[in-house]
């Protein structure tokens, strides 16, 4: 029916000409992201286990929050979020260190972003958040809570000092 009408046939050709790139663009986006995720290893947080908020003080690694050297150049930073502070709120590592951040919350949902890095996590009570990053350049990196957590949300911050 469409083929008998030249004007409609032209319209049909235009549609096909648009549909092809409309498929190609999403496919290209998916390919690029999957490549960076699996070939480069840029992943988002995964399941890292649950924790009883009342038992934080007796659950590893949060029983002793802070920095721990696991191997030369490899650290684990255990931090606790609560209204309106991080414990500890400052950690210091040498340049070139690989740091695995492990966080949990005592009360409400908080956010954890280290500005200028790919560390960006939600910190949910009852859950453990975990992400690893390498600090190559020396400097001070700002940590902000980026999820509204109450009237003092805007003062909840910290820093990573890379020597």
């Amino acid at each position, binding site marked *: 029916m469409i083929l008998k009408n030249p004007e409609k046939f032209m319209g049909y050709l235009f549609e096909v000409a648009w549909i092809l790139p409309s498929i190609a663009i999403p496919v290209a986006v998916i390919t690029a992201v999957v490549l960076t995720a699996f070939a480069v290893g840029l*992943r988002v947080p995964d399941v890292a286990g649950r924790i009883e908020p009342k038992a934080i003080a007796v659950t590893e690694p949060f029983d002793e929050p802070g920095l721990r050297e696991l191997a030369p150049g490899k650290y684990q930073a255990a931090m606790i979020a609560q209204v309106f502070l991080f414990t500890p709120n400052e950690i210091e590592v040498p340049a070139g260190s690989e740091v695995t951040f492990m966080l949990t919350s005592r009360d409400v949902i908080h956010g954890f972003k280290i500005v*200028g890095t790919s560390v960006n996590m*939600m910190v949910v009570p009852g859950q453990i958040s975990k992400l690893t990053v390498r600090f190559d350049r020396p400097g001070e990196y700002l940590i*902000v809570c980026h999820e509204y957590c109450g009237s003092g949300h805007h003062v909840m911050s910290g820093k990573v000092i890379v020597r």
Partner: protein
Amino acid sequence: MAVIARPRAAARADVADRFATENRVAGLNILVAFLALGLGGLMGVLQVLQYNSIDLYKPIKAILPGGYYQGLTLHGVLNVLVFTTFYIIGFLTFVTARSFDRPLVNPGLAWFTFYFMTAGLLIAAVPILLNQATVMFTFYPPLKASGFFYLGLTIVVVGTYFLLANQVLTLRAWRRDNPGAKIPLAAFMSIVTMTMWVIATFGIAVEMLVLLLPWAFGLAPGTDPLLARTLFWFTGHPIVYFWLLPAYISWYTIVPKLAGGKLFSEPMARVSFLLFLVLSVPIGLHHQYTDPGISQIWKLVHFIFTVGVFFPSLLTFFNVVASLEHAGRSRGGKGWLAWIFALPWNEPAFVTQVFAMMLFAFGGASGVINASYNLNLVVHNTAWISGHFHLTVGSAVALTFMGLTYWLLPYLSGRTLWSRGLGLAQAWLWIIGMILFSHFMHMLGLAGMPRRTMIGSAPYVLPAWEGLLPFTMVGGLLMFASALCFLVNMLMTLTTGKRVEPGPVTFARALSGPEDVPLFLDRLTPWVLSAIVLVAINYGPTLYFLATTGRFNIPGLSPW
């Protein structure tokens, strides 16, 4: 002449009477919507001023004891929940009836829908205004608001179901009277929108009824924040399509007519809407890429399906722009792009909606970045997201609804727009203000500034942010000026606008119309079933895992 004119006038009066219920219900819904937008917008101005250390919260402490964060909760709840929902229910009530060219079968139900939703709104409004629900429009537990806040919102959502019921009953009656005919496009799209929405609300319904209401009213000792968050985003992502699709209905069926042309392709428009019906819901995990306790693999699957939704959006982009080009050429426009200048740039209802489309093109692009799995780590919960959100719901949706209202006024109030000049000024102020605001919010986000944060009082403001913040204030003030132009124009129209007999509503005809629509693009059941199956696959394992491992013992806190 007079002999011919008289029955025609009588016919017009008859049209007005036939749709009296729809007109009044739509008008009241839209009135509530714009009152919400006005108050919510005012809160937005206070925020951009606070960003720049101009604190107007102190002088109004008696009315707004919660200051910035109570104002921000009002801004979010009023603008993205109340304004959108009431406008959409009003507009779709109107469009469904006019497109079928018959009143909704149950006018009492149409009124009941409005009263029910308004009751819910009032119940939720009280705790927000008393600073007992300063939890933002996302109300993530264990932040704990007054139980009446959750109850009121639940009632508003349930109220929207009644419109779908009325639509389906009307569709049945229409089918009986028009055997073998294809559903008129605007009615078809309205029903698809409401169907998608009702499927989407499964998440919020379970969150409210099973988790939040018993907990907030003291019947359950605690809750599971991650399960609640996941159920929230089950509805929270498709809700953006619930806002957007009514704007698309206008872009497909009203804007081509306003532009003086025809819709390019009705089959393509239907494909786009049916794909939204199937793909809108099973992609919500892309809001939770940075959440703990949810598998990377399901996050990746939701990413892939999210990018799939880009496809119907690109179809819409093509179809709508092709319709505009057809209009431009019909008006004598020539050349590759010079036809653009032949479009009716002096018509406020047209200009606002085309500006909305232009801003949405950028909003769509930043949306693809948000949805891109690991790329989201750069922007998640930063000011970038607020920038994106204002281009989408704050422009594609809000600006379209304002323009649509210019077009609706004669039908709803029997009066024409008071000032076309003011309408045009409103459109230009909004696009300029929004370009400034959203551009600099995106920049601030890339520089690491968190969203939903009282930046003017934060101790950690970086030097890189300081030069960018003033532009968000200029943009915000321009948008507020635009909103004032709009509200003044509405007020003057309703009181002193010229009275007119609006006549029947005509939707845009299509170059390739219903005669080219295959039967499977006129059926809903197979698409609804596909949507449900896909949702079950994409959400089932994650929800099952969270529900079975959850301990439901997080007590909650109201730290404001």
